[in-house]
């Protein structure tokens, strides 16, 4: 990417790394720590990029933090399990309502 300034490239890289951490469900702090440890990126930079990302993707991060919070109270994954069940059931209900009239 010769057209991008080094800053842009760098920031892009940091974003990429942050996204990877999010995939791992990490918190911002965990991410900062990991990036510093494994990629030598100053936590302040990670933090800043994270914040900016959050501004640009508010909805995503809202959902993300909500999910993380649920996880916190959910030691054996029960909440997420329930959520998945709900999802599946509602999905099937939608399907069923169209073509079945089992009374």
């Amino acid at each position: 990417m010769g057209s991008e300034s080094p800053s842009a490239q760098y920031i892009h890289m940091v974003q990429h790394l942050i996204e990877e951490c999010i995939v791992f469900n990490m918190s911002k702090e965990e991410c900062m720590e990991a990036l510093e440890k494994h990629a030598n990126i100053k936590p302040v930079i990670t933090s800043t990029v994270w914040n900016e990302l959050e501004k640009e993707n508010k909805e995503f991060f809202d959902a993300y933090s909500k999910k993380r919070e649920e996880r916190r109270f959910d030691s054996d994954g029960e909440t997420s399990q329930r959520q998945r069940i709900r999802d599946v059931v509602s999905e099937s209900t939608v399907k069923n309502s169209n073509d079945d009239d089992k009374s």
Partner: protein
Amino acid sequence: MLAVSPLRNPRNEREGEMEAFSIDESEFPDFSGGNLLDSIDFDDLFIGISDGDVLPDLEMDPELLAEFSVSASEESEVKTTPIDKSDDENSSGNQQQEIITLVTAKAEEEAVCGGDETNINPSPKETERGRKSISHSKNGKRKVKVDWTPELHRRFVQAVEHLGVDKAVPSRILELMGIDCLTRHNIASHLQKYRSHRKHLLAREAEAASWSQRRQVYAAASTGGKREHVSPWIAPTMGFPPVTPMPHFRPLHVWGHPSVDQSGMPMWPKHLTPPPHGWHPAPPPPADHPFWLPHHHSHVPTQGMPCFPPHLQPTRFPPPAVAGIPPPAMFKVEQGSVGGQMPPPGQTLPQPPSDIHPSKESVDAAIGDVLSKPWLPLPLGLKPPSVDSVVVELQRQGVPKVPPACG
């Protein structure tokens, strides 16, 4: 709706002929005189009809006719004679009589099953069920239309399944359905259609299931060969429960096949291994994860995730979601479990990745990948912040240069 069109065409021809029977006997002399008509074997034309049977709508196939002969006792006398056409001249006379007999018999039958119907005309309440206009005039020309509403069909299917699909005989189905003014013939033709449709459906579902099971087998095989009992499943004859096919694979749902929905998940896990020993169920895609994870490079290989997590509880797990996804994506579905948290088998659903602590190695690997291959696409594809605002913010924080000179 009664759509027996393929059968109808030849029958129309016959209908015409049959009308001729009832109306005008004079046609017969030609028939029996057999000069020019000798070359045509009319017997063949009428085999399926059974001459005495005037009701033109009765699309009775020879095979079904056999059933009817067995079951329709009151009609058998009507039928056997005409089939036996040795003497055309005689039969013509008989036929006329039998026509009337048949009509009467039918009328009686209708009356009986109709309950309070003393005449033959359909009662208004029928409109809720299959709309059917029965008019048994003496020459029985009118077609009987059965509208197979979902409700009606459902009852039909219930009756059929109660009897057993292969053993379901129209007369018994009729009894079980208990619907006035459905004739055995209607049922018979509907049954025929239903059976052929079912075969089609089951074949597809078996195919879909076998495909998915095969995938599972392959994936499981990579875990290490604990799956001796897997091989039977690969066999073309899947040991698949014929009655309750995998509900979520519903490819065709035209006929509102009820059993498909009723059978819940549970059938499936039975076919998979008794889950324990060494089976590492893949975590499901975090259903609430707002962003699909399209790309996961490092996590895949080692875990040997089966494609379909065989959850051990009778929960309706999202194989439907998975099934709908093209294979490559399916593979990515189970990405998460890298978190190194392999739940002991036989327990609750496995965790999505890194519930609490992602494994350091995997994180490290992921990061390493990003650093070494910057061209790789972003896993989440979040909207990037403006570079300028980042830079400005960083400067505010005391980071004058990006990238910083010193790591």
